[in-house]
Every structure is written in structure tokens, then in C-alpha cells.
């Protein structure tokens, strides 16, 4: 059973996703969903050696809502900078974020969050995977950007995953 379904949650997610895609409940869709839910985890198992552990799924849901809210706020901030700030007053800066997270899934999620939220884009990771390179559109004080990312997002992800 474990060999046929190395990632049971991934299989269930794929089955649910297939039903959302076809948007109707039919027995044929169920057969297709089960085929996909079996084959895709098997084919991609080499890249998922360990099962990602989500310790607090409800906190993860709360995190997603927080990020969606921040994405909306981010849009207003970036729009204001793009429209009204004189070009020579935009202080773009690189910011290094030292990582306390170790799980690859958590780091990917943090990197994605940074890209989607206020004026920051994840640009690279250090070769050892313990620091992220972030480009900030307007950051007169790079240290404040680093502290906010660490306290607002990384601390929450650490509680969810580790």
C-alpha cells in the first residue's frame, strides 16, 4: 500500500483537483481522478523523498488568508510607488534573509510569499539553502524589511511546519 501510494495526501489532493477541474460528478471522472492520483505521485516520487509534514493545517489556512490580505495591501503600495513616486527617489535595495526554516516545503512557501507581498521579490537562495536573496522595490531601511519578513511570515511558517 505504501509502495503504491507513497504520498497519500498528494493522491487525495490530485483527486480533489481533478473533480474541481471537470466541475461535475460522474463515475468516469472518478476513474480518471484515481488513475491520476496513483500515477503522478509514483512518477514524481523521486523528487519527494520525504513526506512534508504539516503540523497545524488550520494555522496554515489562517496563514493563507493573512497572505491574501497582504497581497491586496501590497498592490496598493506598489501602485502608489509606480504612479506617484519620482524615479530618483525610489530606493531599491537587496536584502539578505537568514533562514531559520529547514524544511524545503516551508522555504518554498516563504519564498513564494515574499514574491507575492509588499514590494519584495525573492531573487535567489544561497548555495547551502540557509539564506534568501530578496530585492525590495522601495526600502530605505533594508533591516526593517528583513525583520518584518522574519517575524510576520517565517515565524508563522516555523510554527506550522517544524
Amino acid at each position, binding site marked *: 500500500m505504501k509502495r503504491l501510494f507513497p504520498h497519500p495526501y498528494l493522491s487525495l489532493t490530485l483527486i480533489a483537483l481533478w473533480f*474541481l477541474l471537470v466541475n461535475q460528478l460522474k463515475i468516469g471522472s472518478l476513474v480518471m481522478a484515481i488513475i491520476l492520483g496513483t500515477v503522478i505521485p509514483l512518477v514524481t516520487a523521486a523528487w519527494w523523498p520525504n513526506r512534508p509534514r504539516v503540523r497545524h493545517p488550520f494555522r496554515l489556512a489562517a496563514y493563507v488568508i493573512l497572505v491574501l490580505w497582504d497581497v491586496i495591501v501590497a498592490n496598493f503600495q*506598489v501602485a502608489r510607488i509606480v*504612479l506617484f513616486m519620482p524615479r530618483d527617489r525610489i530606493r531599491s535595495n537587496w536584502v539578505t534573509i537568514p533562514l531559520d526554516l529547514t524544511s524545503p516545503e516551508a522555504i518554498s512557501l516563504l519564498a*513564494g510569499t515574499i*514574491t507575492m507581498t509588499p514590494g519584495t*521579490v525573492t531573487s*535567489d537562495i544561497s*548555495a547551502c539553502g540557509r539564506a534568501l536573496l530578496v530585492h525590495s522595490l522601495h526600502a530605505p531601511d533594508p533591516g526593517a524589511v528583513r525583520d518584518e519578513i522574519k517575524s510576520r511570515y517565517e515565524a508563522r511558517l516555523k510554527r506550522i511546519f517544524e
Partner: protein
Amino acid sequence: MTFALALDLFLSAILIGGGLFALVGSYGLLRLPRPMQRLHAPTKATTVGVGAALVVSALDLAGQGQVSWQEGLITLFLLLTAPISALFLAKTLILRGEADPNLPDPGTGQPWATLAEERPDP
């Protein structure tokens, strides 16, 4: 004023707002001077533009008594893929030396992955 008309007006307002954000995203691409800065405008302003269109699509169907989950799926795929394309654009800029110079030190004793000596063959 009927409920249907009020809903239509409300949805139109969201659509126009979303369209304005998408426009700002494209305008940012023109106005910002440096390549790394230009990366910011489309990764964000367009998310709300597309997001607004999706919310309107779902609510409009809901107003006609139908439930559609596909808008939720599109949102999910958008949130999963947008950061990846932005990351690869940034890595390309860094590798080609077109990003802002003077990258900070990673502080871990190892270089940034894009500039590390041992890269797998492309």
C-alpha cells in the same frame, strides 16, 4: 433597484478596479528604470487584476444560482506559478549581470546559488 441590478453594478465596479491595477502593472514596466525594479510591477499589480476578474466570474455565476470551483483553481495555480517565473527572471538577470550590482553577502559562507561555481549543465 433590484438585487440583480445592484449585483451587476457591484461586479462592474470590481472589474474596472481590477483592470486599473493591471494597467498600473503594465505602466510600471514602462516607467521604472532598472530591470530588477521592472520585475516588481507585473508580479503584483497584475495579481489583483486577474484576481478581480476571477472573483467577478465566480460571483456572477453564484448570482445565477450556479457554483463554480474553477476560479478557485485558477487562483491557486496563479499563486503557485507567479513566484516561480519571477524567481527565474531574477536569476537570469543576476547571471547575466543585468541586475543591480553589489549583491549583499549571504552570510552563510557560501555564494548565492546562481553564482556558485558548480552549476549543473543547462
